[in-house]
């Protein structure tokens, strides 16, 4: 059994690296309530988390309801056009003050005793204040609590509930390059997440999805039926799922960018394959539209071909943002054993509606609760969770690619720990960072 000291889990006992056995993690991490609560505190409340995108709240007074960790919050653009993350909790009795998922409102009103807050967080009206007498709270004392720090990069909004800590740019680190690349493949250099979202729930721990996006190993097996279907349907799958053969062994792809950010870097693989416009969702005549518009922007057709044929980013940004193909995903932990994944199709600003509709269609064929890919992932997460009940051997060994990984320059010319396609460098990268955060380093 583990021996807790100071009432906290000993993460160096649960995530271990050693020349003898390599790299291993303990199943305890997926099923212990104390671990989950410590994750909420150290990762989701003290750290930076992705909260939403500017295009979801384009106008003054727009808002979307979100959850940070387990806490309900409102991501809103105030009357003053400032973006804020407000705790969705009345300062009187603690009721949630916003029940809608999205909308446009200057005020949030608590229905219990009628307190009204402006969308800049201020308490605009306290009903019958005279009853407080001399104990009337001071101006500003009972405003909605606000995330003290907000960071925005290319429209992606991150927030931290801690007033002090790692600066935003340092947190985002090398993930910024990959977010930039994703946006650069839109003719106007921006993506648009206003096409709605899918929410898929599974009965399993949130970290299973965190590890899964950059697990290339499972695709051939978990997604066998989807790969077969897409290969048979050239319009939906051209260049996306065709057989890459030995290329996957020859071209390095799994990269640990540090800070818990990991990528399945397919840029060189895609270019070597000759044609790959998976990110743009474009085929046939639509291809020329994207390449042409980007060539105009960049002043170079060669660069446009290099960019578009490299495809989009495939990245997990610690702890809860994922970007792949036609959509941006977020992980929402609900409880120790329950998680929701939200998928937001990403439209390309400056592209024709024909292309963006094709992207929405390509996304929904794969993902969402009835897609060709997501349900099989959720099934695997639930089976993993079901298996963790057995403690006879609680260890998961993540040794694939460990003996061959090395420092290698990525598409941006920066060195990253790298292994071949079927390596587990990405899982190790996530867990190393997790251990650091959870150990309070």
């Amino acid at each position, binding site marked *: 059994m583990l021996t807790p000291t100071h009432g906290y889990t000993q993460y160096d006992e649960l995530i271990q690296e050693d020349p003898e056995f390599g790299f291993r993690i303990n199943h305890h991490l997926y099923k212990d309530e104390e671990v989950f609560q410590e994750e909420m505190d150290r990762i989701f409340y003290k750290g930076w988390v992705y909260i939403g995108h500017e295009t979801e709240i384009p106008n003054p007074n727009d808002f979307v309801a979100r959850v940070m960790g387990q806490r309900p919050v409102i991501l809103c653009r105030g009357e003053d056009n400032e973006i804020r993350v407000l705790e969705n909790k009345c300062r009187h009795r603690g009721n949630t003050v916003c029940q809608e998922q999205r909308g446009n409102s200057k005020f949030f009103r608590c229905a219990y005793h009628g307190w009204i807050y402006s969308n800049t967080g201020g308490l605009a009206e306290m009903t019958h204040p005279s009853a407080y007498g001399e104990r009337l709270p001071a101006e500003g004392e009972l405003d909605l609590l606000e995330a003290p720090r907000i960071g925005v990069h290319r429209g992606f909004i991150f927030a931290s509930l801690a007033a002090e800590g790692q600066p935003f740019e340092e947190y985002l680190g090398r993930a910024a390059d990959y977010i930039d690349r994703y946006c650069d493949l839109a003719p106007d250099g921006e993506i648009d997440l206003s096409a709605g979202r899918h929410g*898929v729930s599974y009965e399993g721990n949130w970290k299973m999805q965190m590890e899964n996006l950059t697990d290339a190993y499972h695709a051939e097996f978990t997604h066998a039926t989807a790969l077969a279907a897409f290969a048979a349907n050239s319009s939906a799958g051209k260049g996306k799922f065709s057989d890459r053969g030995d290329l996957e062994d020859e071209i390095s792809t799994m990269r640990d960018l540090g800070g818990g950010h990991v990528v399945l870097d397919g840029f060189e693989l895609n270019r070597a394959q000759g044609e790959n416009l998976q990110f743009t969702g474009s085929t046939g005549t639509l291809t020329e539209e994207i390449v042409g518009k980007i060539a105009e922007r960049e002043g170079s057709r060669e660069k446009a071909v290099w960019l578009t044929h490299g495809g989009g980013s495939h990245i997990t940004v610690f702890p809860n943002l994922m970007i792949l193909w036609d959509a941006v995903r977020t992980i929402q932990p609900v409880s120790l054993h329950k998680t929701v994944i939200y998928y937001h199709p990403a439209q390309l600003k400056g592209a024709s509606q024909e292309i963006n509709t094709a992207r929405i269609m390509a996304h929904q064929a794969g993902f969402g609760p009835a897609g060709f890919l997501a*349900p099989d992932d959720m099934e695997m997460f639930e*089976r993993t969770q079901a298996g963790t009940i057995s403690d006879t051997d609680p260890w998961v060994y993540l040794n694939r690619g460990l003996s061959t990984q090395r420092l290698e320059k990525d598409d941006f010319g920066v060195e990253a720990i790298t292994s071949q396609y079927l390596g587990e460098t990405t899982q190790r990268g996530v867990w190393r960072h997790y251990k650091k955060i959870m150990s309070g380093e």
Partner: protein
Amino acid sequence: MNKVATAESMDLRSEIENFLYREARLMDQHKFEEWEALWSDRAVYWVPCAHDSDPMTEVSLIYANRAGISLRLGRMKSKAMYAQDPRSICSRVVGNIEIYPRDDGGVDTYSTFNITEFKRRANITRQLTWSGHSEHQLSRHGDEWLMDYKKVTLINSDGEIPALGFLV
């Protein structure tokens, strides 16, 4: 809409009700080929995500034409669609059927459904309920009715829902 029934209209109602009940059974029993045969070549199969959305500019749970339906069913027939291995045991009730004959001889229908889904996996069992309504557009092809259009609205379609691996 509150017209007095005639023998003819009662016959039509009975035919259409039978169609919808049979469709429900084929979906419960995972009879993919027989269900596919209920579609005409004009098929549009739509399961919206947000209510009142536009499938061309907003994400749906499913939006498929005839070829897309075939592709989807091809995957569902496979044992390697793990989200349905083993397959869910489903029982659904279709009710509140409204039938609106069109001038072209076809009919539009509105009906509600309640589905109970049972899943068993190794050491876990789960029973879920799904609910919503369907809008069908049917037309006559020779001596049979076929679906040209089917829109299925789940009451929780824009919420957080588990994998939807069986037919709705």
